[in-house]
């Protein structure tokens, strides 16, 4: 329990400096606000008063700083502070901008533009807080639940490779089933390869199950020997692969697939094992492994969407906020 609580703790020691600083600024702003509210004849500070203007300028400054994180990320080589410091500043100062702007307007949303700005700010900060919560919890969950995690952008490609691997695995014991081979152009790959290396097993000499049962010497067969099943023996596997597993690997997002369900998938393979000869069980284990990896990628995709989906709201809103905020600042100072 204690460990879980510690895991969920958002403000760790690394955040303490920013946290305390922000708290100090907030406390100072709060004191200023209530002093102004105490002194101001109207009872509430207004955006046009000296204190109100200070709140507005500082709040907008924090917003600009928070928005500058995006620019900072685009030029990571610039020596303008560590990325972590920028991120913490983004989080804390961005959060602080909301109370400052509320103090600026005396908790009034004002006219059309200012009302739009206030709601934009609220939505931006709320989405940011939501994102920060997700960023704090989902990566930990991902590490625990998805050991076969890969780069998100490559998931579709990796899934394709998994399908090709599964095709080859099935063909290795069922013979040529007629799956189309991908002959797409070569690309630069990590690990010093320009193309995917062929699976060694596929080049191994084949032995039929009939030969094995006829007493063929096992000694001559290499360790990586693959047995080609007869058509009758391989029929359940071929049927399962063509009708269920391959579609799952190709379109894993479709709902209702047994293989996509972590609880139901093992029973599928258990029943297949009873239908296939023992020689095919290793191959079946490989296919189960491939399904498991595909399922993890599926889960990674889902978690990734949660982890980054909020940015589709946060970034556009914050850009609109900065733009309209600048318009408001100019026009408010003009009038």
């Amino acid at each position, binding site marked *: 329990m204690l460990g879980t609580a510690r895991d969920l703790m958002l403000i760790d020691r690394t955040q303490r400096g920013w946290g305390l600083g922000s708290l100090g600024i907030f406390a100072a702003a709060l004191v200023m606000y209530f002093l102004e509210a105490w002194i101001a004849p109207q009872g509430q500070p207004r955006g*046009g008063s000296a204190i109100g203007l200070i709140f507005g300028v500082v709040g907008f400054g924090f917003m600009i700083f928070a928005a500058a994180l995006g620019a900072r990320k685009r030029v990571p080589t610039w020596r303008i502070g560590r990325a972590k410091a920028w991120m913490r500043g983004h989080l804390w100062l961005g959060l602080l901008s909301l109370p400052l702007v509320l103090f600026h307007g005396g908790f009034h949303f004002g*006219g*059309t*533009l200012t009302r739009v700005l206030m709601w934009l700010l609220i939505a931006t900060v709320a989405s940011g807080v939501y994102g920060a919560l997700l960023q704090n919890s989902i990566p930990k969950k991902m590490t625990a639940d998805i050991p076969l995690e890969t780069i998100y952008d490559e998931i579709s490609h990796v899934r394709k490779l998994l399908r090709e691997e599964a095709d080859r695995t099935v063909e290795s014991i069922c013979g040529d089933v007629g799956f189309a081979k991908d002959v797409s152009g070569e690309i630069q790959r*990590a*690990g010093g390869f320009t193309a*995917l290396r062929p699976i060694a097993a596929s080049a191994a000499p084949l032995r039929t199950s009939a030969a094995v049962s006829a007493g063929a010497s096992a000694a001559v067969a290499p360790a990586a020997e693959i047995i080609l099943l007869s058509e009758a023996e391989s029929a359940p596997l071929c049927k399962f692969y063509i009708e269920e597993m391959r579609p799952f690997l190709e379109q894993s997002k479709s709902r209702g697939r047994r293989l996509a369900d972590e609880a139901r998938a093992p029973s599928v393979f258990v029943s297949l094992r009873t239908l296939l000869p023992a020689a095919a069980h290793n191959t079946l284990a490989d296919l189960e492994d491939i399904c498991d990896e595909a399922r993890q990628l599926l889960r990674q995709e889902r978690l990734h969407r949660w982890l980054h989906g909020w940015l*589709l709201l946060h970034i556009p809103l914050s850009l609109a906020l900065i733009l309209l905020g600048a318009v408001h600042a100019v026009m408010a100072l003009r*009038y």
Partner: protein
Amino acid sequence: MARTRTTKTVAQRIDLNYFKRPTPFKRAKLWLAILAPAIALVWIGWHVLGRDNRVYSSGRLSEAHAVLEKECAACHVQQAGGYSASAADSACLACHDGPAHHATNINTKVACAQCHVEHRGRINLAAVSDRTCAQCHANLEATTGPGGSVYAKHIVSFQDGHPEFAELRSLQGHQAHDAGSIKLNHALHMQPIRRGPNGPNMQLECSDCHRPGATENQIWEYSDPHYSAARSTDSPHSLLVAVPMFMGVASTVWSSRVSLRPRRPGSGRELMAPPIFANACAGCHLLTFDKRFDQGVPHDNPKVVHAYLVKKFSGYIATHGAELHEVEEPRRNLTGRANGPVSRSLSPAQWVAERVAVSEELLWHKTCSQCHAISITPLQDVRIARWDAANPNAESRIVSSISTAVSERPADSLPGILTANIAEKWLPNARFDHDAHLGFSCIGCHQNALTSTETSDILIPGIATCQKCHAPGPERAESRCFECHTYHDWAKRKEIKPTFTLPALYSTGK
């Protein structure tokens, strides 16, 4: 053969340039990041092209200024290449005057926008915060200097520091009292009356006597048409003039203080008009003076009443000449034998003089003095106006005297009646509207009326009664200063030349 998954095989699957490839998520992020600011820009641009400045407004304007919603420059007067951040006083004063408030006592100039905060929605702009008043009134000595003001020195709000109403405060150890001179026993009038105009045991309502000024012409339950139709030579306005009060308490009577004139004329239902005899009293209090006449004397000044009596009796004797010769019934002496009847003959002038004198004695001594304070010196002259048959010498002397008095009596020999001095406005420095409180019974606030027996009793409720409802918070009536007080001295307002024309205001802002 078990499936192998080495670092190399895993790395082999990754395209080194994967980050350069656009993905649906990256594309969506990019397009939304462009689209959102673009929409914002188009929205602002649309308002700019439409010359609609309302979008920049920090809030809707007050009710009174709603028509200027699109005309920012009407208040934010352009100054040297820019605009004033807050509305300039000159812009406010271009449309309406804002007379000063005790200008001689104020050390600092207060800008309009300091108290009247705009862009707070469709509010009443006069509904200023208590703090705007408390800037000075919380410590009036600091503003005006020691002894600079006769008002309470530390008023923060209606609940904090506001003194008891001036008319109810005791000054210099003297109990405050009503300076009105009409003798009225409220307690008696609030009890069932045995001999009312419509029969026994009638119960008066407050509104039978007290009504707002604007409702005076309505039908009164106990009015007398004879008196209602008559025009008094002394109108209520001239009768009820302000007189110095005994205690020096600032008091306002019928003629309200000019300096407290509201900005706009009221409905006329705010204050209770002083009760008028014809409407409120004549039903019960008859001014009859002689059995020969059903009608009473006019409710007017003694000179008019005297002239009326002379005219009535002169007219009467002209048609009833037989009454000039009077015969008194014989009196019995000690022996029991009846004396002969005593008779006398009068000239018409003597008869009129005698009847007028007798009637005036009744009126001045009883009828009028029941309600009015009368100077009694002239009454001594009329007390002898009675025929004493046992003293014929005296009779002739008296009649002769009266005869002279009737025809040649100087005006100042008539009794003087003290001004009624009925206060209409009891809160000289504040506004009060009875009409706003018409849902509440009179006795709910004026409880003292049930027990008051003296004219001098002040029957307005104290501040504590008002504070029961007028307090901060929900389910309470407005309690801010502006509810009762005005800052500007509207009596000093100046007329302003109109600035805007219709319908040009909506097209050009001019």
